[in-house]
């Protein structure tokens, strides 16, 4: 994107924060998949776990055994940024800055986060920040150094409501035009009229759609192994994340049809209900 490039910064470098408001809707999963997806295409990516006190991104990426220093060691001046960054050996160019597990959100300030992001910008094309749930200081910290924001929601009343609140707070913090990812969509339920559709959600939130990720057991299975589903060529969620990665890079990729292939879809077509 057109971030004004200061001296030493990569012209294309971008800091993206992944937010949601409501907990457990898929921020960490999204962050990991974006990181792996971008890195597997040769990009230099730093993933920052801003969920201080509830460190997760390390286990989702399968890097939990390699942590020496964490983000608070960097901001507190106990080590250099380079020392705290864990290199993912599977992907050239993918690095993780882990959260502290034993401290709380006040261990880092928004100013420190800004500085940290500025430093990461000089070396990485993409800096992706995994935001904690909530709207308190952890959220403030996570968004402080970001150029743009991604909002993750699920198709449920509570999650969409919280997403709406987050969008308001992001805009108040001058992070304009956040993009939406709808996660865990169950197309069967949408067809039956028992789950809000993408159109419904977009209509209510009035923001741009970055992508739709279906509910998929492969997300859990990959996460169990410390892998990202984006690498799984056969899964639909993997395809969904690959599409999102391309859109993050600015390419126009059509939304995939989550209906096609479903048994009900075919049956409905057969009897002419579609």
């Amino acid at each position, binding site marked *: 994107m057109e971030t004004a490039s200061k001296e030493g910064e990569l012209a294309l470098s971008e800091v993206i924060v992944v937010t949601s408001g409501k907990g457990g809707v898929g921020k960490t999963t999204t962050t990991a998949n974006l990181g792996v997806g971008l890195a597997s295409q040769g990009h230099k990516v730093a993933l920052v776990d801003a969920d201080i006190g509830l460190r997760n991104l390390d286990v989702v990426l399968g890097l939990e055994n390699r942590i020496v220093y964490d983000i608070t060691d960097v901001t507190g001046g106990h080590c250099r940024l380079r020392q705290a960054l864990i290199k993912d050996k599977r992907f050239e160019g993918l690095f993780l800055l882990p959260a502290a597990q034993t401290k709380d959100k006040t261990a880092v300030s928004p100013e420190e986060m800004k500085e940290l992001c500025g430093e990461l910008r000089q070396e990485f094309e993409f800096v992706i920040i995994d935001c904690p749930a909530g709207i308190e200081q952890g959220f403030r910290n996570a968004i402080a150094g970001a150029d743009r924001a991604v909002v993750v929601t699920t198709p449920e009343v509570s999650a969409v409501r919280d997403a709406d609140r987050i969008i*308001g707070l992001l805009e108040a913090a001058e992070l304009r035009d956040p993009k939406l990812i709808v996660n865990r969509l169950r197309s069967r339920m949408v067809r039956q*009229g028992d789950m809000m559709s993408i159109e419904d959600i977009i209509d209510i939130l009035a923001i741009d759609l970055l992508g739709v990720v279906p509910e998929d057991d492969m997300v859990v299975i990959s996460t169990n192994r410390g892998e990202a589903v984006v690498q799984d060529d056969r899964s639909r969620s993997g395809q969904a994340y690959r599409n999102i990665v391309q859109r993050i890079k600015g390419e126009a990729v059509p939304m995939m049809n989550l209906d096609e292939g479903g048994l*009900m879809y075919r049956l409905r077509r057969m009897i002419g209900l579609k």
Partner: protein
Amino acid sequence: MLDFLSRMFGREANGSKNIAKERLRLVLVHDRASVSPQLLQTLKVELIQVISHYMDIDEEALEVTLDSNENQVALVASIPVKGMKRTTRSLAGSI
């Protein structure tokens, strides 16, 4: 049988998603209003401006609130009028 089929293959009108949408719509009316308490204040100021063209109102006693019951949200304004302006009729006539 047709009923069974249409339930089986989904008919949106019967589904719970419409309930979800409606509840969400309502709750967001409140949330969005409460995200910016300035909004009601701004609305008040502009209301006063408009109404003052037509009548003298008690600006101090003016009350504007969002009132909600189960399935509707209403903007309720209580605006004590102190007196009518003489120009009211001609203004109204010109609209």
